[in-house]
């Protein structure tokens, strides 16, 4: 049930930002709430939970993008695995760290999307536009991660069952 909250959060984030982008033109910039959610979890949770959450969010995002089934799922799970593995080697925390990790996660996510598209489809059509949008989108996703960090951290504290080991020890 706790994991469903993260899935719902990532999905609603994508739903909200894509509909906002339909009205308010940010020059095609759309922050990726799915990547922020997945990277946030990848920095704190065990890999099975992270990948399962990424799989579910990837499915939901892929349906809106009209993408073939499996594409966004693999890319987002891959992004989660990369973030998880990288977090083991880099010591860092806080909103700035999440922002940088999310921005890099978005780049990894889109590179994986492109690689999978090239692999699976005869003519994906390399889109110079999508490539040009990559870095600006990474920056705006990083900004979203930075801003939403306190909320995500608070939600995580609420969702994580409290242990009283410290009190018991005292």
């Amino acid at each position, binding site marked *: 049930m706790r994991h469903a909250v993260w899935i719902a959060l990532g999905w609603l984030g994508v739903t*909200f930002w894509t509909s906002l982008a339909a009205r308010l*033109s940010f020059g095609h910039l759309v922050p990726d709430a799915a990547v922020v959610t997945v990277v946030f979890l990848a920095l704190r949770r065990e890999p*099975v939970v992270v*990948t399962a959450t990424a799989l579910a969010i990837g499915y939901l995002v892929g349906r*809106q993008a009209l993408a073939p*089934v499996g594409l966004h799922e*693999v890319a987002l799970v891959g992004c989660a695995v990369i973030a998880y593995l990288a977090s083991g080697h880099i010591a860092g925390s806080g909103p700035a760290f999440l922002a940088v990790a999310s921005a890099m996660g978005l780049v990894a996510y889109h590179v994986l999307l492109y690689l999978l598209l090239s692999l699976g*489809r005869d003519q994906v059509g390399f889109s110079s*536009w*999508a490539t040009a949008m990559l870095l600006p989108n990474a920056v705006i996703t990083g900004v979203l991660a930075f801003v939403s960090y306190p909320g995500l951290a608070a939600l995580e504290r609420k969702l994580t069952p409290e242990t009283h080991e410290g009190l018991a020890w005292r």
Partner: protein
Amino acid sequence: MVVLILLALPFVFYVSNSKVSRDHNVFDRMVVWVSAPVQWLTVAVVDGVSGAWNHYIHLVGVQEQNQALLVENANLKLEVLRRDEFRLENDRLRNLIGLRERAAEVKAIAAQVIAVSPTPAFRSIRVDRGTDDGGHLGAAVVGRHGLVGRIAAISGGWADVMLLVDANSSVDVVVQRTRAHARVRGRGGDGNLGIDVEHLSRTNDVEPGDVLMTSGSGSVFPKGLRVGTIVSVERGRFGLYQRAAALPSADFDRIEEVMILPGGWPRESSFEDGADLESNGAVPEANGAVPEANGAVPEANGAVPEANGAVPKANATVLGEGVNP
């Protein structure tokens, strides 16, 4: 191990589905059924807030603007009177030469865009009309200036539209001036990046500025919808085809309202000669969409009704005198 399975499972799905285009299944529809109202609500809130801001809060300079508008209004009234005369004259002339409103039998459903694609690799939009409103899979979607795309997935009250500029989009077109056939393929970018014109025989006379229209082949799109304008032509020394690039007519930077053409139109229906979809007069005024003035030239007519403003979800507006089965 579990992680590897979770990674491998969707990969297998992707490899087996990557070349297959499919509509939403039951579960997908459920997903859309939950997410689309949220998107619709978000758009409604944004529209409401921006409307309240523009109409009630952001009133700096309104007094001066009001004076200027009063003068402009007086001028426009005169202009309207003049145009009414032209319109009546236009009607009389059309009746005289036996012309009828072009493609007036084609239904059109006004729809609001409620979301864009979450990833730039795919160019799609979601609109607030679906099968309940008369839309169907593959239906053509047009904007104020021309073809926008086609419905690639649909459910009861919502539809996902693959845009003309999506890399997977392909449309059969004719060059308006020479009637040369070609195919237009998206580049996966926005409108400014352009679209590719393929399979254009090298013997055909095509030059920058030529207008591309839908050919009507395959009955996917009605004939004569404006697709774009050729901006460059490259004819190599060898080969069967020449290469051309075009700029789409629709403004993909900011699409807020579109029209769905549900299909079932008679084969002879054509939008041609109504090069600019704004310059048409086929909409009954009762539907709330005011027909644009045709101007002084009697031939300047067309058929695609213009969507004037956001159409409330409650009353799906079907425009045109439909004979759609």
